[in-house]
């Protein structure tokens, strides 16, 4: 495997079975993603793009096939090992932000550090620094319901990156945002990608918008890779 490749999948399959019905969400996906790239995964809803992201993020397990991230086969990891992978290996953001609404912005950003065994005073310091980087330091004491959608997504990005992962997985991060805010969020992701060499895998159905920022797009259709295109 090329040392530049940070994510590699081989014959990746995911089948959901609900009762007697079996749904093949992903079929024989073979993907290589280089380190430091901004990849947009596009496709209609039901094309399997979120499933792919959940597999890459270690939230779910493939039915068959191999996923290697930074040389480690996460498809063969135990539940505890997967937890460690999610803690340090990747960061994830979601369409619905998935912040804990009863906790302030800074507390939400701190949460991964709690599981990473970081001392309390260091946690606060690091979380505030991270919030500063996404431009939300003044709003750190606000709870998610008091923040706008764009602000909430920034908090989510800060949380995803607090443990300094090499990969950021974004599942429709602009789905709940207006076009101006969507653009701002994608700009932020692009900036993080360029400045820090963060590998970003963005799942979006807004192909046009994604192409503006991504270096590479992957088209999914019915669980298969339909197209792959380098944008720049």
């Amino acid at each position, binding site marked *: 495997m090329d040392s530049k490749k940070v994510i590699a999948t081989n014959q990746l399959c995911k089948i959901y079975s609900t009762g007697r019905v079996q749904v093949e969400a992903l079929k024989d996906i073979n993907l290589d993603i280089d380190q430091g790239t901004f990849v947009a995964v596009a496709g209609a809803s039901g094309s399997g793009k979120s499933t792919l992201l959940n597999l890459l993020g270690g*939230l779910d397990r493939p039915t068959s096939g191999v996923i290697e991230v930074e040389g480690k086969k996460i498809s063969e990891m135990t539940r505890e090992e997967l*937890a460690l992978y999610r*803690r340090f290996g990747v960061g994830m953001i979601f369409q619905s932000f998935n912040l804990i609404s009863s906790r302030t912005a800074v507390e939400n950003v701190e949460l991964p550090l709690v*599981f*990473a065994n970081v001392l309390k005073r260091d946690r606060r310091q690091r979380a505030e620094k991270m919030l500063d980087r996404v431009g939300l330091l003044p709003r750190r004491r606000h709870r998610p319901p008091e923040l706008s959608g764009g602000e909430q997504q920034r908090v989510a990005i800060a949380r995803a990156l607090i443990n300094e992962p090499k990969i950021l997985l974004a599942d429709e991060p602009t789905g709940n945002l207006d076009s101006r805010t969507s653009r701002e969020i994608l700009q932020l992701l692009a900036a993080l990608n360029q400045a820090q060499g963060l590998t970003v895998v963005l799942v979006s159905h807004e192909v046009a918008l994604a192409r503006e920022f991504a270096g590479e797009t992957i088209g999914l259709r019915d669980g298969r890779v339909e197209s792959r295109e380098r944008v720049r």
Partner: protein
Amino acid sequence: MKISDYIGLSLSNLWKRKLRTFLTAFGVTVVIGALVAMVGFGKGMQKNITESFESLDLFNSLTVFPAGPATQRFGFDPDDQAPVEKNPRGGGPILDDEAIKKLEKLEGVQSVFPEIRFPALIKFKDAEELRLVQVIPAKITSSKLIKLSLGKPFASDDEDSVILGTSLLRPLKIQDPASLLGQKIEVASIAFDFSRFNPMNIASFLQERQLPFKKTAYEFTVIGVTSAISFGGPSPLQSDVLIPPGSARRIEKLPFANIWDLFRAREGRLGYSAVNIRLSSPRDVDSVKREIQDMGFSTFALVDQFNQVRTSFIYMDMMLAAVAMIAIFVASLGIINTMVMSILERYSEIGIMKAVGASDSDIQKIFFFESSSIGFLGGVCGLALGWVVSRIINRVINFFLAKQGLPFFEYFSFPLWLCLGAVAFAVLVSLVSGIYPAYRAARVDPVIALRHD
């Protein structure tokens, strides 16, 4: 995760749902409170009995009865056949002064005194009480058996002195026991009046309700007041009016204190109904008992009684345990319910925690800490509740007992192990209750949880 983080996270979660947390913890509080009060009461009684046995030296006590049906003092069966007679006079050896001398010579015997009681009216000023007066030798009044709260023991067996129990103070309308010392009281004994006894005229006695008895009054000086004595129980002390044997001999009195004495008197076997023996050590109880039984007497050792009491305490503890198990089962259902509800409410939160790197065991521990916090809270409050309830009950019991002239008594005991054990038990139960919810929380599928909203 650090323990402080688990605690912080759990407490903040519980605090978010204050009402439910407190209601659940309150269930535990009631159970632990009841448990602490009940066990505290049991232990208190046990402690009181053990301590009073020890302080009165009752473990060194042995009571001797004449053999025969009359020894069954605690139950009478008229059809009961007399035992096979050992000597021609019937029954077995008589418990008289001669027998006492023999008993005194046995190894390990410290002192021997017969149980002599006779009915008498105790008069002080215008108050009057009927009592069985007990005869106690001077040396016994200075032993551990009698705890004097005021005054001093009898100096000799011949003085006209009396020691009163505190339980007699109220009936005699005495406010200040100290003022009683040195005062004279009247002990009016009842005896047969042969001059008035005419068998031909028995019908007239009954008609006029005039029995052939006469009353003679004797004056005694109060020299001591003894605090609560457990007379009526197994103690050799069976009265709250005590006089020395010398002066007792001068009193004309009925030669019996109970119906058995009458039977023996009829058989011409008038001896003492019982003799109390004090041993130098509890270890001598068995050997002395055997020797006395070989002499043809029956014996009663308080140690045996104590062991019976102890067995009954074990039964009581088992009953308590059974009741506690039912109660704690109900309380633990409450905890399980609360925790399962909490999982459902926090489903997406659990998913989020997993997505940012919480492991199954992290989630499990968070839930364990939450359920044990409920248990700890309930345990501590329950301990406090049990203590408060026991204080109230103690007050109420003592209020009513004080009316009967009994001194203040502590019915509850809270040894350290009980306090720590109650809280530890509450935590343990809540931990066990938390097993299923914690397992369920740990198995939450983050993909489903994050899709939730």
